[in-house]
């Protein structure tokens, strides 16, 4: 093709001008491209005019100069409470053609799914546009943290070059992180006859100015004037001072009343993170009636807050008291990613290992509870390759945070988007290729029925459709770094932009708000009193009683509403309640297969499950009817545990217990010194079930051990007694 020179007035100084080849688009095939910086708007207009009304410029297109326009992404500082961070990407000058660049976030000390929601998208600058803001969701957790950061990166620019590719995004903690000193209380305990108890109040970092706070005691199970002298005093931390000790006088009595506790609180904090700091002091009863069974309460706590009694837990309860132990369990275990692509088998192994071995047992029970609450079934690889993140980043990170954070994380997870089909739900009549798409109600319905409000809440069939419409666009796309995975993506094009009225005016969307509509909806659902009651009831079924005491449901739901779904506070209300300690609830539940297998291992002081036994453990669970990560219905398994009882399951339990005990390594941890049959069985009971068993069970076990051949070794007799005791009806319950 002959080379055509541009009109004279388009002949720019050589430094600014490069004519390169031909245009890439169909319409530009036969035109030369002039790349030029378009600072000169007069020139731009002239060219447009020229191209429109004359033929002189028809052979050319103007394109941005190769070196000219530059893109940069700006640093940003966000506060946790802000909810949305707007990251700016700037183009140094207006261009005549579209400029695009890829944008993504990378977690650093701030964690994706916990502190913020990452994004990956392609940003397009329309001709003339120089500034784009990318909204990112910032999650407000309740943990005291240092300032955290993540980064935003732009790359793969088309039509401009990149001047600043990486921006630092800081999230400033508002819960009293290192930037702001925070006051804390250390839970204390003392024998009721100790005379005084010291409570330590400390500052997280030395403050640049004096910090004051009001310290006050209040009654819980212990009564001021009877068990202790109440106090209310102002504490003042001088500059640089970080600890203070408050001494509280105690009153001894002669009642066998069990351990009691009273509350300690800090109010009116000035100069440090604001709010109310709560703690408790446990008073240990020294008037033990030998008839009362503290071991029963200890085993109850270890079985409800964990997977059964074990040495470590018992020692902890001995030293901290029951309240102190519960308080110590209300912190999350560290989040350790397991492996890059953990699938069912590895996750099951990890779950069993943690159930058997973790010291933060409550965290493990809660991860189990919440995974089941937000059950996904491994229907395909999209769910499968998200499972590890699903359990770790979306569930585990949020067990003591706000419910809405977990709800939102789950709603955005590729696993849930795939399992309940929201990823493909679009506004009615959307044409994609030759296909006409529309709504899918699956997730919308289960979101209300199972995840939040409960089936009895007053939502209608129309509300199901409205929720589905609000959530259109919540979808996923291929992970740019790993084609086998998906990452969350809001698809504008899928979104239904019409007016919406949810639950009779509870949420009205008049004008399209895109993704924010779903965020609003999820927050409303998460904080709704029906959700508070429905989910609290389920938690109480798990932790207290399968026929939940209504007063406790009301108390937990109240905490939920007051704290906007702070799950640590809800758990504290449930676990610190009288109902939790009511002996009528001891042993009222049937252990799940996971609980049975883990508690049998723990009872025998078996530590880490070695690799050679992993498959055997997995098989034990499946034989007893529990295949983890393979529960098909969105309801998960019921919290009513008689579900696990059947003739087939009981045979499998006996078979499984026998297999565990007969492994030499597993039963090795049960150390007994011998003696006659009765002594041997008594000693073993004190190790595996310190709360005791019924006389009928014990005597049947003694009889069977006594019936063993004369040559039976101590280990054989121990093994026989263990098989029967761990197979006993008492051990099946908790």
């Amino acid at each position: 093709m002959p080379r055509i020179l541009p009109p004279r007035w388009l002949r720019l100084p050589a430094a600014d001008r490069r004519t390169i080849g031909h245009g890439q688009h169909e319409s530009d095939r036969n035109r030369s491209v002039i790349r030029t910086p378009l600072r000169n708007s007069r020139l731009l207009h002239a060219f447009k005019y020229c191209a429109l009304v004359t033929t002189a410029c028809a052979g050319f297109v103007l394109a941005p100069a190769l070196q000219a326009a530059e893109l940069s992404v700006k640093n940003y500082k966000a506060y946790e409470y802000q909810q949305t961070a707007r990251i700016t990407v700037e183009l140094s000058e207006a261009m005549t053609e579209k400029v695009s660049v890829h944008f993504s976030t990378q977690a650093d000390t701030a964690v994706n799914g916990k502190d913020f929601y990452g994004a990956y998208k392609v940003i397009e600058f329309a001709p003339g546009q120089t500034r784009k803001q990318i909204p990112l969701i910032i999650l407000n957790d309740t943990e005291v943290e240092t300032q955290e950061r993540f980064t935003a990166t732009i790359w793969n620019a088309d039509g401009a070059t990149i001047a600043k590719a990486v921006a630092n995004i800081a999230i400033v903690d508002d819960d009293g992180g290192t930037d702001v000193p925070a006051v804390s209380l250390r839970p204390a305990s003392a024998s009721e006859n100790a005379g005084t108890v010291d409570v330590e109040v400390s500052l997280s970092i030395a403050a640049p100015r004096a910090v004051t706070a009001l310290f006050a005691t209040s009654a819980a199970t212990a009564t001021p004037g009877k068990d202790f002298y109440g106090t209310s005093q102002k504490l003042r931390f001088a500059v640089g001072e970080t600890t203070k000790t408050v001494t509280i006088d105690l009153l001894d009595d002669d009642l066998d009343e069990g351990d009691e506790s009273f509350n300690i609180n800090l109010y009116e904090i000035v100069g440090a993170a604001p709010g109310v700091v709560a703690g408790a002091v446990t008073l240990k009863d020294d008037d033990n009636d030998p008839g009362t069974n503290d071991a029963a309460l200890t085993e109850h706590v270890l079985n409800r807050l964990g997977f059964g009694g074990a040495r470590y837990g018992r020692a902890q309860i001995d030293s901290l008291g029951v309240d102190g132990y519960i308080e110590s369990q209300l912190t999350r275990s560290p989040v350790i990613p397991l492996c890059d692509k953990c699938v069912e088998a590895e996750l099951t192994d990890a779950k069993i290992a943690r159930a058997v071995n973790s010291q933060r047992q409550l965290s493990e029970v809660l991860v189990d509870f919440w995974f089941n609450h937000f059950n996904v079934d491994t229907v395909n690889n999209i769910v499968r390759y998200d499972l590890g993140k699903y359990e770790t980043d979306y569930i585990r990170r949020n067990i003591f945070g706000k419910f809405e954070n977990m709800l939102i994380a789950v709603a955005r997870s590729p696993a849930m988007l795939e399992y309940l089909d929201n990823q493909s739900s679009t506004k009615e009549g959307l044409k994609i290729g030759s296909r006409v798409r529309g709504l899918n109600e699956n997730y919308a319905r289960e979101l209300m029925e199972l995840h939040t409000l409960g089936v009895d809440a007053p939502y209608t069939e129309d509300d199901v459709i409205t929720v589905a419409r609000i959530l259109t666009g919540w979808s996923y796309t291929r992970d740019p770094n790993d084609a086998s995975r998906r990452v969350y993506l809001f698809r504008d094009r899928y979104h239904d932009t019409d007016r919406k009225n949810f639950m009779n005016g509870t949420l009205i969307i008049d004008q399209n708000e895109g993704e924010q509509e779903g965020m609003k909806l999820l927050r409303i659902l998460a904080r709704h009193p029906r959700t508070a009651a429905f989910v609290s009831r389920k938690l109480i079924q798990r932790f207290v009683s399968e026929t939940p005491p209504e007063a406790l449901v009301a108390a937990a739901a109240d905490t939920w509403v007051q704290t906007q779904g702070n799950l640590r506070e809800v758990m504290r209300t449930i676990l610190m309640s009288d109902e939790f300690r009511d002996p009528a609830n001891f042993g009222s539940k049937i252990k799940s297969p996971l609980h049975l297998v883990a508690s049998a291992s723990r009872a025998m002081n078996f530590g880490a499950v070695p690799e050679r036994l992993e498959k055997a453990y997995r098989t034990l669970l499946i034989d007893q009817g529990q295949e983890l990560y393979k529960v098909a219905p969105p309801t998960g398994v019921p919290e009513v545990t008689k579900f696990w009882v059947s003739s087939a399951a009981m045979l499998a339990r006996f078979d499984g217990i026998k297999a565990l005990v007969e492994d030499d390594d597993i039963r090795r941890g049960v150390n007994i010194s011998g003696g006659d049959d009765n002594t041997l069985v008594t000693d073993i009971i004190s190790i595996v079930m310190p709360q005791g068993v019924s006389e009928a069970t014990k005597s049947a076990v003694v009889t069977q051990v006594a019936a063993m051949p004369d040559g039976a070794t101590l280990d054989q007799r121990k093994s026989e007694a263990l098989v029967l005791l761990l197979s006993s009806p008492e051990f099946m319950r908790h």
Partner: protein
Amino acid sequence: MTNHYSRRNFIKKTALWTAAGTLPVAGSARAMGTDPVLVTVFLRGAADALNIVVPYGDGDYALQRPGIALKADGYTNLDGFFGLNKVFADHLMPMYQSQELGFIHCAGSKDNSRSHFEAQDYMDAGTPGIRSTRTGWLQRALTALGPTIPHAGISIGKQTNKAFAGPTPTNTMLRRTELRKQRKNIAGDRDTLIEIYNPASHPLLGGSVSSAFKSLDVLAEIPNDNSVVYPDKNSFGKSLREVAALIRRDVGVRIVAINLGGWDHHTNLTARMEGRGEMLSSALKAFRQDIGEDFGRTLLLGMTEFGRTVKENGNDGTDHGHGSMMFGMGGSLVGAGGGKVTLANDEWIGLKKERLNRDRYLQVTTDFRDVFAEVLDKHMNLGGSFGSILPGHSVDTRNYPGLI
């Protein structure tokens, strides 16, 4: 209430039908049981009736489902109006033609719940709309049968089927091979376990353990003499293989409950229905061949918790709806509900919006409790116990679908 269909009639009918020589004689010579057996198959997840028993003769069917309506090559004609999804028809047409298989369309629960768990609970309890029912309808049917051995009622799987929920222990099993292995492993502890699981002290656990041990020897010793090879990689087929063996050996099994999940087809319905349909119908076909003469006293009753939206959704699937279908399979369908699609009052209500439930869902014209009632009455001879088995439902024989 008069049983217009007595047990005597039932046996006579079976005998006639057997004499007609339509059945292959399976296995070796053995005493054949005479007690009727009910096998319930619960398709959990809400199966889409309209793409199983296809009303192709209704012009609105294709209009409402432009993307997923089955075309002529996707079903086999049944009666000039309905067609059977080809995946099902490939295995089941011979049984349909010999009148051993029949469908009831627009069947389901009068309750409008569209929650899987709630609607399943209602159907298992046999009392739609009532949350407080603590026992399942099959448990109550067993009680009505009188004192029975624990394996008179068997759930196939690891958990007790909800229809068997209740105080009377029933049995649960997955595979005989597993029972044999367990029996061997725990032989030495068996007596002591029975002793410490005294049901008087431990009602729930003791009941299950005693029912396990009472039936263990009988069940474990049923030999592997199934007369056909069941389809490969088909867990449902493997389960039906156990069911056939239980019935053929006549060890006293009266009611078996089995689940097949995976019917919640919100997306990509056609392909997913193919997978489920193949699993279900190839297994049913093998079961039919395997069970031989005992097919005459066996009734297999299929159900699902509700149907799905008449109109397809935006993802080539369907969402939760209302009316669905049920099916029966067994020798006693011949000359009655076999070989046809039964409709209440012989009327197809149509798929026009104004004829639907809430403008969106298939109506329920046959109450599932009337199907249960007919089966209990005519097949299980329990017509005298409706008061306890189907409380709150006034049974009128004129409402029977005429399945048997």
